[in-house]
């Protein structure tokens, strides 16, 4: 788990690392610890999987990926692990989650996010997920975003 210093590092970096020559030194100053400790702790958080990655976070929408589709699939609870493994392994799926269904209106339990520059490309990606799932999917929907109302990094 993470302690209060780790939390302070998360808080200091959630808007991104500063674009200065020595960004970890700047973070260290904000948190009040040594720069080496900032780097060592971030390394440890990476190894523990708490930080998934450190890097550039591109704004897909600004780069032309206008079709942001939330694909949702009705998968039996007994099949969810297998379905998640199959869909989570597709390189064009940016996020793949199991979420609770809310019957009767919302039977969908597997969520997979896709991004495309054209509507036809997005439709083709949905087809590929459907093909991979085969009979594991009992129904699906794609909800495209018509407007991004707010998007920021993690907030503590």
């Amino acid at each position, binding site marked *: 788990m*993470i302690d209060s210093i780790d939390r302070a590092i998360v808080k200091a970096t959630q808007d991104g690392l500063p674009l200065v020559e020595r960004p*970890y030194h700047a973070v260290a100053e904000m948190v009040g610890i040594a720069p080496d400790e900032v780097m060592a702790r971030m390394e440890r958080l990476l190894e523990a999987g708490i930080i998934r990655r450190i890097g*550039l976070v591109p704004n897909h929408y600004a780069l032309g990926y206008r079709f942001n589709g939330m694909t949702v699939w009705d998968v039996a609870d007994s099949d969810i692990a297998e379905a998640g493994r199959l869909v989570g392994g597709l390189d064009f799926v940016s996020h793949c989650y199991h979420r609770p269904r809310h019957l009767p209106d919302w039977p969908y339990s597997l969520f997979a996010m896709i991004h495309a520059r054209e509507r036809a490309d997005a439709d083709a990606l949905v087809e590929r997920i459907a093909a991979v799932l085969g009979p594991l999917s009992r129904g699906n929907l794609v909800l495209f975003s018509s407007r991004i109302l*707010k998007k920021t990094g*993690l*907030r503590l």
Partner: protein
Amino acid sequence: MDKLDRHLLNDFQRDFPLVPHPYAALGEQLGMSEAEVIGRLAHLSDQGSVSRVGAVFRPHTVGGSTLAAMAVPPADLERVAALVSSYAEVNHNYQREHRLNLWFVVTAPSPEAVGAVLADISARAGLEVLDLPLLEHFHIDLGFDLKWS
């Protein structure tokens, strides 16, 4: 945006160096100076192509979060969308094409605090909020190949 910008954007979505001068390390791989890397990144941020340079955290490791959805009557959408976006705990808020037309992510220091935000939004909007917390994630997020064409 030139070829070097594209490399910057695509090639460093992970394994950003944990060294005292990380931008100099990127510059070494791309054949440019530390100052040029910083300048290009600042420009890409200003024009909106880069959201940020930094860590992507696994969900649920710091506090709690959930995905929530609401079916908002079209006439009420602007008011409710603005209400939802006004919460500091809401970091993503999307309008989507479905009867459930407002989808947002709530992140807070604890699961209880997440529940309190949902209850507050529901009361103030006068609408039911569907709570769809993550039960399991199946994808290791390693970034996304931008496939420049």
